[in-house]
């Protein structure tokens, strides 16, 4: 997509950096304030925790999508890859009866492998990312159904499994703050991804690829290898999402997952990452994912009729992004 340069720039007094970083949250904060005023139930600890937990799966998927989008690609397979990894965990733990850590590692490895395949198709066969990951999305959706014989796989034989997402290590220490582990995992993945993106060579190449892939290639960088690595990393993160959702539902639901990619990509773009590649932040993606969950939760808390919820959600997504554009312009 074309980057519309905004040449006419304001040169008024510069607002301090910290204040501006806060303003990035403005859309989110505005939503929170409005909902808090509208309903006393909104800001209850339990509801805040519910919102955070509702963010966990989409947030992790959105982080995966962020990596790929920064390279200038797109990943439509995040949703069904999540499901596929959940099914793999189910096969390992329930069908084969292996111990919990094997299931966890297996699910993540399955994600990495599938990401690797997407990466190879994109980097080596030069298939556009949209098509490569659309294909993967369908293949994985089908395979999840095939492997599971179109039946949910339950984790009843692995009692610790539900703890992955729903247990609360924090709660067992501070009973007043039962933050579910799933939320911790989301923040853990976010921190890790942010670290990789900003501090490591992989992250630097991720941005460089999205900025000008040909220039990177002509700098003697093995572009294919790094691109494949990014898709693989995104795949591994989808594996984490698979564990989260399976743990929460105590089952691998093979039919779920399609459609989740849109929410994930929406979170990324709301968070200010450009679909043209080369720029983006994990913090932005987290905020984007939170905006989506807060909106959904708040509208439900207010018992807005479903069809109007949809209308309002659409309008607010546009407004939130527009507000962010205004803020940047005033920078």
């Amino acid at each position, binding site marked *: 997509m074309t980057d519309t340069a905004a040449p006419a720039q304001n040169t008024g007094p510069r607002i301090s950096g910290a204040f501006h970083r806060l303003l990035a949250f403005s859309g989110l904060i505005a939503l929170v304030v409005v909902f808090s005023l509208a*309903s006393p*139930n909104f800001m*209850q600890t*339990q*509801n805040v925790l*519910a919102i955070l*937990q*509702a963010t966990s*799966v989409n947030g992790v998927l959105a982080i995966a999508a962020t990596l790929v989008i920064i390279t200038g690609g797109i990943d439509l397979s995040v949703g069904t890859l999540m499901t596929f990894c959940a099914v793999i965990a189910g096969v390992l733990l329930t069908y084969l009866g292996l111990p919990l850590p094997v299931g966890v590692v297996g699910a993540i490895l399955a994600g990495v492998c599938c990401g690797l395949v997407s990466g190879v198709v994109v980097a080596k066969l030069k298939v556009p990312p949209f098509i490569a990951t659309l294909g993967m999305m369908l293949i994985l959706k089908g395979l999840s*159904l095939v492997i599971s014989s*179109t*039946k*949910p796989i*339950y984790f*009843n034989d692995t009692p610790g499994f539900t703890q992955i997402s*729903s247990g609360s290590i924090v709660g067992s220490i501070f009973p007043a703050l039962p933050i*579910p582990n799933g939320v911790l995992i989301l923040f853990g993945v976010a921190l890790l991804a942010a670290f990789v993106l900003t501090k490591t060579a992989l992250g630097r190449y991720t941005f460089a690829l999205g900025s000008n892939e040909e220039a990177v290639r002509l700098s003697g960088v093995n572009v294919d290898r790094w691109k494949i690595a990014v898709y693989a990393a995104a795949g591994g993160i989808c594996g984490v999402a698979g564990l989260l*959702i399976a743990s*929460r*539902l*105590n*089952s691998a*639901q*093979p*039919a*779920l997952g*399609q459609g989740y990619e849109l929410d994930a990509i929406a979170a990324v773009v709301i968070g200010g990452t450009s679909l043209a590649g080369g720029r983006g932040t994990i913090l932005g993606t987290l905020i984007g994912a939170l905006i989506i*969950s807060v909106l*959904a*939760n708040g509208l*439900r*808390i*207010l*018992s807005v009729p*479903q*069809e109007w919820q949809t209308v309002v959600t659409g309008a607010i997504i546009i407004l939130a992004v527009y507000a962010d554009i205004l803020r940047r312009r005033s920078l």
Partner: protein
Amino acid sequence: QDKYDIAMICKGFQHQFWQAVKAGAEKAGAEFGATITFEGPETESQVDRQMDMLAAALSRGPDAIGFAALDSQAAIPLLQQASAAGIPIIAFDSGVDSDIPLSTATTDNVAAAALAADKMAELIGNSGKIAVVAHDQTSRTGIDRVEGFTNRIKEAHPNVEVVTVQYGAGDQLASTEITKSILLANPDLKGIFGANEGSAIGVANGKQELNSNVVVIGFDSGAAQKAMVASGLMNGSITQNPVGIGYETVKAAVAALKGETVPKIVDTGFYYYDAANMNDPEIAAVLYD
């Protein structure tokens, strides 16, 4: 004639309900000598995708077609085409506004949901606030179950109030989030009705995550729901007899192909089950995994 070729076009495919219909159909196929193909669109709103499936099935030229219409009218031209080609049509799950189907194997969703309403009222002591989490705002089953439930509450249980009806597309995770929002917004809520398998499981999940003791009535069965009913997390659930629906559909199709007369309506019934009665042979027979 070695084996009949019967095409079943459903409203869905991946849900356990439809998988149970498929199992029933295959059982009957094995018994009566028919091979079954089984297809359904992604969601219950994709009426046109179902038309494409029906059209492709017609091109293949099966001996008979089983059809669960997403819209009672949209498919009529294609059904006319089929009947002109001499392919018998058996409707199942919900009917078609036409006399082309030789037989319809179905459950009365309105009555089934009304039974859920009665059970709900009974469990919450006939007064208080309740909510509905349903799967689809526009599909026949969605409308019938929501209206069947809410109308029955209005008519028969004046002290019970349905505060909200929300839709989670039958997605367990989405339904879980919806349930939690509803519970947090209405701390005095006494019960929630989950109008299909995914919704019901989502409701029970939400209840569990919030440690709530709200009454949950589900719909359909499946391994997870059965376990939840058995454990008491879900107070009870309505089940149709999808295996029976599939079985009766194929049975009627084969009968029609053999030139026998078939009943216009086969009611496969619905049942309420809870921890107490779910092991009764009569109930256990209609529950599916």
